Structure formats: structure tokens, C-alpha cells
């Protein structure tokens, strides 16, 4: 036996050796979605990096890497080399940085806008007077324009130069390269004309171009900051989690629910099936199976043996385990936070934005170059003017912003409605959803005990109920929670050991030397009258039945409203592990046409697949351990408030609001986001298709081009703003 244990622990060690570590890094000076792509591409080729995800909305990079080949310090250094400032998440005074950034935005935009208007003041008379101007005034006005454009070129435009440098380091043509190219060609051409005292000057276009671009960037930055604040305030919201602490009283373990933040090092905890490990700790049970896919990407459950480290955020997928904490909630927080957003897959719209950012610019340079050479026979001046107009008017910004800006907003907007979007891909599918599968108990209804019938006269009801309460200590189900708390507050707490829970059947355990079983009739082996009645749960000891509990359930307050709202969008059915007649009863109460009861977790998942094969976009709404598989399989999965960690870990969206209607509101919101993204793309593509030929043909001059370009970006941002404002106050549900 010791040999087996030894071999097992060696295997585990090997596993740990080959496993990955995850770092969360703040990159606070990302200024657009393209930056996120840039950093991702910069980190991916590093030896040892297994997974990189840079989240633009939260300005965070999450990197999974092999600790043997790489370290967090090296990752930070590498991001710095790419031209960004990187810090370990939450290590900096973010407020001070944000304040400095806001000042930089205001100052950069203010200065360039002011100078641009002044440049107009001195260039407009030249446009109007044309050849009528007395020749001695022309140089005066031109040099004044030059003096006024200098601060814009030398100071305000610096963020673009920095961005272009980054892109150069990565050998990529990005948005900033294009902008700098436009600025430099227009400015150099104007300088040439100024010194030669012939031809047209584009100082006004350059200044306007820079000012408008900075304006749009500032707008975008403010949006993102507001989103971040909302996201941040929810992160703390998520930490009101409870853990089950056990203390030794009279030689027996006694369980109590404690807020995770109040756990001390050395506390002993119970972690039930489907619950997340609340803080880092050492395993005290002999073995435990943990699902660590959220932390390391390892998809199969990891086996731990006594004494091994359990990492906060891993989910107990085996039997209930006992552990001793080795860290406080604070020192394990960053791992818990990562549970929030797990978007390894990019939604189609964002992926499209990446492609655009990558290929649009090279294509535009080709068009500009071709225009220049095609116009060369008509003179260098005309050729240069056309090429500059093409460079300025073509707006990769609108295309690149179209999706990310909307997604960043959607993230915060959904939070305001009480939903955490954990996987961005789900948003597009949620908008198309037309089949809704609802779990019954815990999702649509709350269970309660209606009546207790004692079957053995010598046992008091009071004792029986305390036994049930103790046995349910191991189970992770809304009914168990109800039985543990509330209902039996008068009963003397009992101490149970050797607890075992079979989801969907019942619990067993030893109390005062007697083995008890509590659950469905077939689980306890009841053949008593009423054994076929599924509303009854039975308690039995070694000698036979002790009592029966009649369970009832009431629909949650706004279950009806949710069902009505979902019915307007598609088909609704109840998918329950509970008895078919009870499922049907609840369905009729809530006006749902279809209900399926008595389904095992696997059968639930099969039903989801069945609907998917029919071409339906399925949404699974659930809460329990038995919903985890079907949640993972559905197109969109939503875990309701109070759901087990196992269900939440599988869910694309987690409802943090008590209101079930948050879900239907979220679906409506998702549809609006997707339509905004679609409209943005349509607009950006249409704008470029119309504007570029105009510039090539010489119909628009560089000044109008710069206004058009900035306006197209502004339209995209304004379109996103249609999604409504988000604010922190609304989070208080």
C-alpha cells in the first residue's frame, strides 16, 4: 500500500513538474485593441509560453507558462521590450497612473486642437485670397503656420511615434505606423514647399489630423476607464464567497460557514463536491480529484494525495475533501480573480478586427504608393497630394475599433445588468439563441420541507432532523443548503463522519457509531408505502426506515417573468434531474410546454446536443453540480446566483444578480451589442470603400480627408455609446 502511494505521488510530482504557472500582468498603457494583439503576438513565440490572452477591456495579460523555462520577471521584461509598461497585477497605485494618463490625454488633445485652430486662422486667408494676396504677406502667414504646427508635431503627436516604434520592433505595419507615415509625408512635403516658397502647404491638415485622432483616442480611453471601474468593483463583489470551516468540538468535527476573507492560516476546511478551493492549502484527506482547467488549462482532473498543495480556484470534482489552509484569501486573491474572465477563444468579430489591423495597412500603403506613381506624369505636387490624401483618409481606426470598443462596453454593460461575461465568444451566440433549457431546482425554484412523518415511535422528530442536517453537510445542492441551515435551527447540531454524497440520489454517513442513509427511496432501500412518491425523501439507519420528509418547492419570484421573456425569443423547456411528474408540474405552473425530468447529467448533455443537431442555438441555465456537463456542452451557458462553483466554472455567463430577469435583459443587451458591431463594420467598410476612391481621384484634399477620417472613427465610438452608459451605482442590486 505505501508503495502505491509512493508511485502515485511520484506521478503527481511529474505532473506538477510538467505543468504550467499562470501570471496576471497589468499593462496599463495599451491604447487600442491592436495593442492587445501586438503583445499577444510578441509573447507567443517565447519558449515556455503555453497560453497568452491579453484582455483589452481590463488591460490585463494572462500568460500561462512553463516555470522551468520562463519566469514572471522575464515576461515583464519582455513586455517592456515591446514598448509597454508591465507590472504584476494589482501591484501599482492604479489611481495615480490613471490620473497621469488622463492629464496626458487632456493636454495632448487640448494643445493640438488649439494649435490646429490657430493654424486655420493663418491658412484660411491664403485659401480665400489665393493669387490676389500681396506677395510679401505669404511668407509671413506660412511661417506663422509653421510655428503653430510645430508643438503638434513635436509634442502632441508623440504617442503615435512611440506606437510606430513598437510596431517597427515587431516588424509590423499597424495603425500608428500609418498615422506617422501620414504625418511625416504631409509635414515633409509642406516643409519642402515652404522652403522653396512654391506649392500648397498641408500644415492645417496635419494639425487637424493629429488633434482629431487624439480626441477620438481620449474618448475611447475614457470609455475604457469607466468600463474598468465597473469590472473592478465587481471583482470585489465576487469575493463575498463563503467557505466551510470545521473545528474540533468534543472530538468531533463541527462545520460552520465563514466568509473566505476571514479565514486564517491553519484553518481546517471542508470542500464539497463542486465547490472551489477557497484559499491555498494542504490536502488532509487521503486523495482528492481537482479540476484545475481554469488555472492551468489542464483539462482532465488532477489527482492529489494527502499533504499536497491545493491551489485556490481549483474545483473539487471528487468526493468531499478536508484541507488545511496555508494562505489567507488575500494572498490567494489573484488566482480567484482569474476565474472571472476566461476567454481563451476570441469571438469572430474580434478576430476579424485583428485580421483587419494586420492586413488593412499594408494594403493601404500599396494603394497610396500606386496612386503616387500613377499620378507622377502630372507632376510631383499632384502625385504627392493624392498619395497624402489617400494615407490620411483611409481609416483603419474605424475598422479596428468597430468590434473591440463595443465588446469592452458590453462587458461593463452586462455587469450593470448583473451578468459577468466570462467568455466573450458567448456574446455572439447569446444574441442568436433560440432554445432555452432551464434547470428546475435551484434555478427556477427553491426547495423546502413541507411535512415530516415519523416511522419509528422511539425516535423523536427533533433528533431525526438533526441527523438529516448533519448528513447533508457533504452535499452541494440547494436542498442540502436549505436542510443545513434555516429549517433546523432549533435542532442540536450533530457530528457526522465518513460522509458520502451521490449527486441525484442521497447522502450517507456515520453519526454516533450508526450508519445513516438519507435520500430517495431507491437509495435508502425503502419499500414502505409511498416509496414511489418522489416528493418524499427517506432517512434510514441499519435497522430500517426512520422517517420521511415531504419536499415541496416554490418557483422563484421572477421565474415567470424570465420564462415569458425567454418564450418571446425561442423555445423553453425544463431539463431536470428531478422526477418527471415534478418537472411537469413546475412546467405547467410556469406555462412551459416542454419538460424533461429524471435526467442524469449525461442525459441532460445529450438533450443539449440533440437540439444543437437540429440547428438550434442552445442556452443552458443551471446551478448545480449535475448541470456542469450540459453547461459545458451548450452554445451558451449561464449559471444563476448561488450556483455551485463547478457550474460557474463551466458557465459563459454568471448571473450575480438575485433577479432572474437579469438573464433575459442580458440577452436583449447582447442582441443590441451584436447589431452595433455589425453596423460599425458596415459603416467602416462603406466609408473606406467610398473615401479612398475619392482621394485617389483627387476629389477630396488632405484637409477634408483628415476631418473625414476622424469623423469615421467618431461615428464608430458614438455608435458604441448608443449601448447606454454604465455606472457603478447600478451594481447595487
Amino acid at each position, binding site marked *: 500500500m505505501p508503495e502505491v502511494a509512493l508511485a502515485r505521488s511520484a506521478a503527481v510530482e511529474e505532473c506538477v513538474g510538467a505543468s504550467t504557472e499562470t501570471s496576471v500582468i497589468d499593462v496599463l498603457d495599451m491604447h487600442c485593441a491592436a495593442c492587445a494583439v501586438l503583445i499577444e503576438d510578441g509573447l507567443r513565440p517565447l519558449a515556455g509560453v503555453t497560453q497568452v490572452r491579453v484582455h483589452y477591456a481590463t488591460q490585463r495579460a494572462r500568460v500561462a507558462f512553463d516555470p522551468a523555462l520562463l519566469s514572471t520577471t522575464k515576461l515583464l521584461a519582455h513586455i517592456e521590450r515591446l514598448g509597454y509598461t508591465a507590472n504584476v497585477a494589482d501591484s501599482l497605485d492604479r489611481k495615480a497612473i490613471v490620473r497621469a494618463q488622463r492629464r496626458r490625454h*487632456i493636454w495632448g488633445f487640448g494643445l493640438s486642437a488649439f494649435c490646429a485652430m490657430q493654424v486655420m486662422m493663418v491658412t484660411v486667408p491664403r485659401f480665400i485670397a489665393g493669387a490676389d494676396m500681396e506677395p510679401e504677406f505669404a511668407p*509671413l502667414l506660412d511661417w506663422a503656420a509653421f510655428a503653430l504646427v510645430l508643438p503638434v508635431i513635436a509634442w502632441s503627436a508623440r504617442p503615435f511615434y512611440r506606437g510606430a516604434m513598437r510596431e517597427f520592433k515587431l516588424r509590423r505595419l499597424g495603425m500608428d505606423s500609418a498615422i506617422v507615415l501620414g504625418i511625416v509625408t504631409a509635414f515633409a512635403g509642406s516643409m519642402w514647399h515652404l522652403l522653396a516658397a512654391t506649392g500648397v502647404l498641408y500644415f492645417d491638415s496635419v494639425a487637424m489630423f493629429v488633434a482629431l485622432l487624439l480626441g477620438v483616442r481620449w474618448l475611447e480611453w475614457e470609455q475604457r476607464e469607466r468600463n474598468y471601474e465597473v469590472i473592478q468593483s465587481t471583482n470585489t463583489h465576487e469575493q463575498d464567497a463563503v467557505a466551510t470551516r470545521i473545528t474540533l468540538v468534543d472530538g468531533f468535527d463541527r462545520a460552520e460557514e465563514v466568509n473566505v476573507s476571514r479565514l486564517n492560516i491553519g484553518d481546517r476546511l471542508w470542500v464539497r463536491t463542486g465547490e472551489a478551493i477557497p484559499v491555498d492549502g494542504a490536502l488532509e484527506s487521503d486523495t482528492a480529484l481537482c479540476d484545475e482547467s481554469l488555472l492551468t488549462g489542464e483539462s482532465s482532473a488532477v489527482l492529489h494525495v494527502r499533504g499536497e498543495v491545493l491551489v485556490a480556484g481549483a474545483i473539487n470534482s471528487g468526493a468531499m475533501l478536508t484541507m488545511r489552509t496555508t494562505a489567507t484569501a488575500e494572498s490567494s486573491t489573484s488566482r480567484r480573480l482569474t476565474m472571472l474572465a476566461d476567454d481563451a477563444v476570441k469571438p469572430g468579430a474580434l478576430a476579424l478586427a485583428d485580421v483587419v489591423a494586420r492586413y488593412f495597412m499594408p494594403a493601404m500603403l500599396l494603394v497610396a504608393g500606386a496612386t503616387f506613381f500613377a499620378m507622377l506624369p502630372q507632376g510631383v505636387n499632384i502625385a504627392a497630394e493624392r498619395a497624402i490624401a489617400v494615407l490620411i483618409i483611409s481609416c483603419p481606426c474605424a475598422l479596428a475599433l468597430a468590434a473591440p470598443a463595443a465588446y469592452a462596453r458590453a462587458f461593463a454593460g452586462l455587469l450593470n445588468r448583473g451578468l459577468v461575461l466570462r467568455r466573450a465568444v458567448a456574446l455572439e451566440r447569446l444574441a442568436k439563441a433560440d432554445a432555452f433549457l432551464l434547470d428546475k431546482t435551484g434555478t427556477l425554484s427553491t426547495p423546502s420541507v413541507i411535512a415530516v412523518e415519523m416511522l419509528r415511535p422511539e425516535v423523536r422528530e427533533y433528533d431525526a432532523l438533526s441527523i438529516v442536517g448533519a448528513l447533508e453537510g457533504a452535499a452541494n445542492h440547494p436542498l442540502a443548503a436549505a436542510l443545513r441551515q434555516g429549517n433546523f435551527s432549533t435542532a442540536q447540531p450533530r457530528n457526522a463522519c465518513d460522509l458520502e454524497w451521490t449527486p441525484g440520489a442521497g447522502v450517507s454517513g456515520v453519526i454516533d457509531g450508526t450508519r445513516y442513509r438519507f435520500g430517495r427511496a431507491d437509495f435508502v432501500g425503502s419499500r414502505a408505502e409511498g416509496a414511489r412518491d418522489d416528493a418524499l425523501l427517506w432517512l434510514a439507519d441499519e435497522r430500517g426506515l426512520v422517517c420521511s420528509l415531504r419536499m415541496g418547492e416554490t418557483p422563484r419570484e421572477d421565474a415567470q417573468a424570465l420564462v415569458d421573456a425567454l418564450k418571446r425569443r425561442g423555445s423553453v423547456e425544463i431539463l431536470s434531474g428531478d422526477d418527471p411528474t415534478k418537472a411537469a408540474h413546475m412546467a405547467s405552473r410556469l406555462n412551459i410546454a416542454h419538460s424533461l425530468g429524471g435526467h442524469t447529467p449525461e442525459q441532460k448533455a445529450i438533450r443539449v446536443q440533440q437540439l444543437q443537431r437540429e440547428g438550434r442555438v442552445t442556452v443552458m441555465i443551471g446551478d448545480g453540480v449535475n448541470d456542469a456537463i450540459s453547461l459545458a456542452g451548450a452554445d451558451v451557458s449561464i449559471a444563476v446566483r448561488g450556483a455551485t462553483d463547478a457550474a460557474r466554472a463551466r458557465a459563459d455567463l454568471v448571473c450575480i444578480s438575485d433577479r432572474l430577469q437579469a438573464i433575459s435583459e442580458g440577452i436583449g443587451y447582447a442582441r443590441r451589442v451584436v447589431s452595433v458591431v455589425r453596423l460599425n463594420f458596415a459603416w467602416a467598410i462603406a466609408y473606406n470603400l467610398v473615401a479612398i476612391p475619392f482621394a485617389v481621384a483627387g476629389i477630396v484634399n488632405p484637409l477634408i480627408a483628415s476631418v473625414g477620417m476622424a469623423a469615421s472613427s467618431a461615428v464608430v465610438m458614438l455608435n458604441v455609446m448608443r449601448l447606454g452608459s454604465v455606472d457603478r451605482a447600478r451594481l447595487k442590486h
Partner: protein
Amino acid sequence: MESLFILIPLALVLAVIIGAAFWWSTSSGQFEDLDAAGKSIVDDDDR
């Protein structure tokens, strides 16, 4: 029209002064919270 030779340099000098004033107001944080001053009048507590 010769006055332009004085007026335009003068405009440039003014622009520099305005620019400096704007820089000062930005760096002293005057644009950071534009709502607080307006809301302070309906705030109950005397802070």
C-alpha cells in the same frame, strides 16, 4: 496692412501664453472631476 507684421507675431505670443495657461490648469488637475463642483451644492454633509 503692414500692421500684420506686428499682429501675427503678437498672435503667436498670445498663443504661447494661452498654451502655458492651459498646461498649468491641466497639470494642477482642474479637468479631473468636472461634476464634483456642480454636485457639491446638493451634497448634504458639510465637508
